[in-house]
């Protein structure tokens, strides 16, 4: 997995690319919590280049989501492929996050 970050102050767009598998979930989750801890309050995670997310990746998203909630930070997701959306549904994560269909919507919601 590669992790691309784009800054559009005050917004940070995080773009993981590849597989968020057990091994990749650790640096992915660490980076998200680091961003929130260092003061980011407007974050968009664009998943359009993600091939899959396994449960370890969802754990990372949950931890970041909880931390964002506690820190009054906005954490928005976008770019879910049909397969990834299915995993969100199977895990009943759809209601736990703000999920946008497009990056443009996500950028607005994360502001």
């Amino acid at each position, binding site marked *: 997995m590669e992790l691309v970050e784009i800054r559009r102050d005050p917004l940070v767009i995080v773009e993981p690319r590849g597989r968020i*598998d*057990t091994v990749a979930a650790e640096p992915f989750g660490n980076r998200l919590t680091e961003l929130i801890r260092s003061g980011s309050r407007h974050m968009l995670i664009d998943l359009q280049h993600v*091939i899959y997310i396994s*449960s370890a990746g969802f754990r990372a998203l949950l931890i970041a*989501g909880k931390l964002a909630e506690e820190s009054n930070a906005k954490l928005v997701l976008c770019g879910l492929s049909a397969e990834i959306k299915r995993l969100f549904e199977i*895990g009943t994560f759809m209601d736990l996050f703000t999920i946008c269909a497009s990056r443009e919507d996500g950028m607005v919601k994360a502001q």
Partner: protein
Amino acid sequence: MARVEIRLPNRRDKMSEVGAMVESFVRAQGGSGETVHDVGVVLDEVLSNIIAYGYGPEQAGEIVVRADIVDGRIVVEIEDGGQPFDPLSLPPPDLSAPLRERKVGGLGIHFVRQLMDEVAYARVGGTNRLRLSKQLPVTPTRRD
């Protein structure tokens, strides 16, 4: 014969490589994007479980992954010599809790059950054997 067998040590750094090999096998056998995706996720869940809990901290072990096409279904078998463990015995995860109380224990095996058509566990001799299968989409394919 459409079949692949991969042996890997119980090390996390080998998992992605094996996942990618099995994914290409499924793709080459006419698996749809969805099937390739599902097999990739499921394999990550099963292998990470075995590597995390099957062996002692310094214990080296070998895991065997076999993928095969049987009657239009992709069949993946994962065998390990770790301690006896039936992942199907785990309770289902609590999927109703709100964000702050949500735990992900059991989510991996929940994905495995939901994404595959059949999941079966057997303890054979000193080996854990997990057999997963999923119907491949029915498309006319050329046979060589």
